[in-house]
């Protein structure tokens, strides 16, 4: 019998032959010394190869690194859970918006719902600040609405990213186009910039695009601007027509002409004798809407005094010291502050919701079509405990915090546990919290100014606002853990810890006089703990 081919001997040594074939090979091997040597060699070769491959030199450092990385990786949420929550978020967001439009609830300006407009982001920022300043009452609806939209958009983005995770290029295109959509100005790509001590746009002059005026003493617009107008100046007078929006940073502004869309004003005094087609957002000391002044949509004001003699077609939302209305408001008026007066011949087309220090003055001759809902906030800190609405609000607050806490627990278990443990490093967290609280807004403003940094600034701002909320939840978990005497790992998975901790925190921060300080301390502690966790995660990711 002749010798078998080499491939057969390989199969023989690898034990891959049928028993019949094997017997044949063995019969041959018994007679052929040459093949015997060959097969022995193969067997030896296989053994050596297996030995060489089996030798694993895992240095202690590498082993430790693996262990640490595995622990970190194990703490990441399961992708399926993330996808589930993201999908639920999307459905909830869509449902919310659908419900809003179906029920024809007060939607406010249409622009509001389009996160691809810069307008949305500005309004969103405004709403948040407004909300924080006036403790929520007047602007809560707006905030919820915009948060829902934001969640929806981010969720869509999240789902798309998840599906596209295999293609880096598509992912990049998606992210870039999203950011471009967010930051791109809605109209008039062409921009004209003017810098001079005095800038005047004469009556005969028409500027066919957006005009930006920087660092002037006075700006006077008598002519027509077809795009937007952005002004950084001491004083501005708008006597002509602006077809787009107006953004003003400065001391005083007087509007005698017309602004077709919205106006965003950061100024000491604002006087309106002309027309604003859209909303007018004002951060400032004083705002006067004269008899001939007219606002096509809503007036949103954050500052001290508002005198309204003219007309506002939709809502008036004011948080400040005083609001005097002797003009006409088409819809709801909401005011949080010290004094309110509705004087004849003033009228309010919708409801009147007031939270004031002093008794509001409402002339008998003045007209309120809807209901008047007035709450007097006295400096008697115990008074609120007698109102059922107070408990309802606290319960709502508690429920929302529990939901957010549970989301954290399931979605970011590692981060959640780490933050909770960081709270224990009391002084470090307190110090770091103060630094984060102050430094982040400054960094955001700087990034916003650079224009290129706008997307990053917006992301950081969003994270910052989320952190402000999450801070107390983290501290609450720490409190719960301490009270129930659980280990950190147990506490991070324990719902009772969260429930108890949040309950204690809610109760403690409601104590008169002391509560405010406690709230601040909790905010700092939580913010510090979160900040440290973010830092730690970034570092271990880089390592």
């Amino acid at each position: 019998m002749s010798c078998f081919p080499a491939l057969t001997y390989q199969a023989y040594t690898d034990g891959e032959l049928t028993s019949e074939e094997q017997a044949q090979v063995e019969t041959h091997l018994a007679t052929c010394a040459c093949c015997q040597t060959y097969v022995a060699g193969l067997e030896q070769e296989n053994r050596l190869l297996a030995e060489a491959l089996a030798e694993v030199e895992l240095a202690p450092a590498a082993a430790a690194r693996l262990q640490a990385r595995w622990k970190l990786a194990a703490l990441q949420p399961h992708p399926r859970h993330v996808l589930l929550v993201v999908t639920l978020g999307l459905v909830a967001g869509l449902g919310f918006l659908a419900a809003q439009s179906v029920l024809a609830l007060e939607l406010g300006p249409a622009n509001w719902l389009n996160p691809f407009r810069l307008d949305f982001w500005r309004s969103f920022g405004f709403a948040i600040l407004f909300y924080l300043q006036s403790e929520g009452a007047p602007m809560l609806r707006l905030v919820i609405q915009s948060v829902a939209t934001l969640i929806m958009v981010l969720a869509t983005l999240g789902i798309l990213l998840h599906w596209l995770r295999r293609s880096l290029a598509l992912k990049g295109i998606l992210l870039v186009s999203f950011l471009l959509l967010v930051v791109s100005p809605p109209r008039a790509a062409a921009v004209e910039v003017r810098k001079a001590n005095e800038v005047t746009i004469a009556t005969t002059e028409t500027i066919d695009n957006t005009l930006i005026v920087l660092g002037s003493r006075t700006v006077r617009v008598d002519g027509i601007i077809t795009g937007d107008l952005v002004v950084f100046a001491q004083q501005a007078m708008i006597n002509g027509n602006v077809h787009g929006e107006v953004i003003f940073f400065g001391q005083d502004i007087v509007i005698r002409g017309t602004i077709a869309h919205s106006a965003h004003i950061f100024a000491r005094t604002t006087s309106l004798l002309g027309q604003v087609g859209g909303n007018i957002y004002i951060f400032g000391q004083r705002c006067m809407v004269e008899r001939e002044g007219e606002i096509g949509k809503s007036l949103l004001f954050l500052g001290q005094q508002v005198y309204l003699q003219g007309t506002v077609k939709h809502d008036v939302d004011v948080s400040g010291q005083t609001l005097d209305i002797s003009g006409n408001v088409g819809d709801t008026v909401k005011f949080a502050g010290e004094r309110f007066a509705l004087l004849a011949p003033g009228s309010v087309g919708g409801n009147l919701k007031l939270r004031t220090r002093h008794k509001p003055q409402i002339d008998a001759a003045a007209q309120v079509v809807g209901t008047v809902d007035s709450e007097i906030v006295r400096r008697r800190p115990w008074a609120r405990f007698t109102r059922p609405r107070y408990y309802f609000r606290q319960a709502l607050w508690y429920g929302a915090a529990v939901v957010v806490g549970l989301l954290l627990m399931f979605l970011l278990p590692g981060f959640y546990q780490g933050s909770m443990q960081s709270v224990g490093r009391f002084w470090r967290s307190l110090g770091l919290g103060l630094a984060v609280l102050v430094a982040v807004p400054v960094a955001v403003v700087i990034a916003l100014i650079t224009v290129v940094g706008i997307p990053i600034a917006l992301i950081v701002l969003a994270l910052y606002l989320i952190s402000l909320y999450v801070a107390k939840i983290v501290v609450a978990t720490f409190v719960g853990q301490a009270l129930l005497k659980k280990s950190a790992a147990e506490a991070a998975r324990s719902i009772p810890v969260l429930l108890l901790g949040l309950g204690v925190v809610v109760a403690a921060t409601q104590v008169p006089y002391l509560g405010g300080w406690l709230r601040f301390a909790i905010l700092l502690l939580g913010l510090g703990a979160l900040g440290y966790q973010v830092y730690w995660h970034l570092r271990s990711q880089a390592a």
Partner: protein
Amino acid sequence: MSKQPQTMHETARHETIRQAQAGSAEAWAELYRMHVRRVYGLCRNLLGFSPAAEDATTEVFVRVYRALKQYDTSLPFTRWVLSIASHYCIDQLRRQRKEAQLFVTEDAAAVEVGDTSPSPLEKLLANEKHEAVRAVVMALPSQYRLPLVLRYYEGLSYAEIGRRLGLKRSHVATLLFRAKEHLRQSLKQKENRR
């Protein structure tokens, strides 16, 4: 006499697995400790690059951890873990070369395996340090390295390797044959250079 400790060992391991499935962190740590070297070794042999192998090891344990509840004792645990690891690594390699095929389709019959049997290099292999042999294996093209590692590290049969790589059994045999030829050649060259 040697049967008894084996069974006890098996029982103890099954108990550990059962505890890990029930959520015991200690049992899981034990399983991790027992398998980390084997998994790391497989990843290194398949991927051939140590940082990538570390990444893969981490990922494999995440997958094992998540799939732990689905594990049934019909398959030995180590083999199950290793199969997760090799699936993952092969998948990674496939992704890396999306454009180029991992395996050049080669007609098994066209491979000439004549009577001119190439001599096994058992002596050469014995002389070389294990590390040097591994270096040569790592340098092999992945279409040769993969079957070699699956056969001599994971200990899979030709048919299993074929299933794992999507190849015919005969193709696996030829690839292994070729792989060894390459190995012998490289080692001989290395020897001659000395």
